[in-house]
């Protein structure tokens, strides 16, 4: 369970930084960070719910029979890049979202939650339906955590926080407290 929490938290933290702190990596540019976070969350949800089942099929019906399981990480990354590219094409049509395509593509491929989901499939899941469930689950929990962190940061922008802690230091501490809160779920699913 804690490995699942770990990949989720790191993905949320990096995506949050990309959204609010690294101009080059901002996947969308709208007037409020919350809208960016919603669009990125939707993109990641779409990506995981597509990639995880595909990776399950790829693994069980292609790699296993051909005994090339060692290719799994490489092909999964390529698979993710493919799906990320498709999502990028779909998102580009919606000029309302005004995507910064390259940043979106980079964020989707580099997102540890998506790659983590595919690599966790073998140890977590027996049937195809379960893999869809895992993909959706990870995508949804990523979305909720990202939205929570973004709105929390928006609210903290005007608090009387010590100057040396404003911005990134406090975001890291908040992520620490989030990790503490999520520790409650350890042991929920057998490790």
């Amino acid at each position: 369970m804690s490995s699942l929490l770990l990949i989720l938290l790191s993905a949320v933290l990096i995506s949050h930084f990309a959204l609010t702190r690294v101009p080059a990596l901002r996947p969308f540019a709208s007037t409020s960070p919350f809208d960016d976070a919603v669009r990125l969350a939707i993109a990641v949800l779409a990506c995981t719910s597509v990639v995880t089942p595909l990776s399950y099929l790829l693994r069980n019906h292609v790699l296993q029979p051909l005994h090339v399981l060692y290719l799994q990480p490489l092909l999964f990354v390529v698979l993710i890049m493919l799906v990320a590219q498709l999502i990028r094409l779909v998102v580009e049509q919606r000029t309302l979202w005004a995507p910064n395509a390259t940043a979106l593509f980079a964020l989707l491929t580099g997102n540890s939650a998506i790659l983590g989901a595919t690599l966790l499939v073998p140890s977590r899941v027996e049937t195809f339906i379960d893999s869809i469930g895992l993909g959706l689950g990870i995508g949804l929990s990523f979305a909720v955590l990202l939205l929570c962190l973004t709105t929390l940061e928006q609210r903290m922008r005007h608090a009387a926080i010590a100057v040396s802690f404003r911005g990134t230091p406090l975001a890291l501490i908040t992520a620490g407290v989030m990790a503490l809160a999520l520790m409650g779920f350890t042991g929920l699913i057998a490790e």
Partner: protein
Amino acid sequence: MLTAALLAAGFAAALASVLARSSRVVPRSTLIERINDVLPQTQCGRCTFAGCKPYATALAEGRADINHCPPGGDTTARTLATLLDRPYKPVDPQFGITPAQPVVAWVDESRCIGCTKCIQACPVDAIVGASKFMHTIIAAQCTGCELCIAPCPVDCIELRPAQASQLSLSS
């Protein structure tokens, strides 16, 4: 071993084709368009650019900073800061002061000589009149950009607070 190589090559080819097909970069215009939506459209030129759209283009290309727009005031500077992910800076007084409440220009009809200079200067065609005829300003369309005050030879245009009825109360 052979199957692995074939498999990897197949995947790489699929990826390459998809990547190639979508290599065109999204035109930057959408960013200019979105900046222009935020600006107050008074076309007053106080930001040293010829209007809101030129200022938006300069912002998109990074040639201008976000605190050049007095009519937009604090709100526009804050929204631009979020949009372009730059630190928020209040409006720089050298470009002008945000008026306490919305103002409109007003022609003193007893002194107007009908020279149409202000009509040519008005960026939003809010002044009605013809040469040698009386001029007047449509209060509802005047954005208070003060561009008509300078060209007037007899200096008969002054600024007045906008009437409550002209302000749109309903959202």
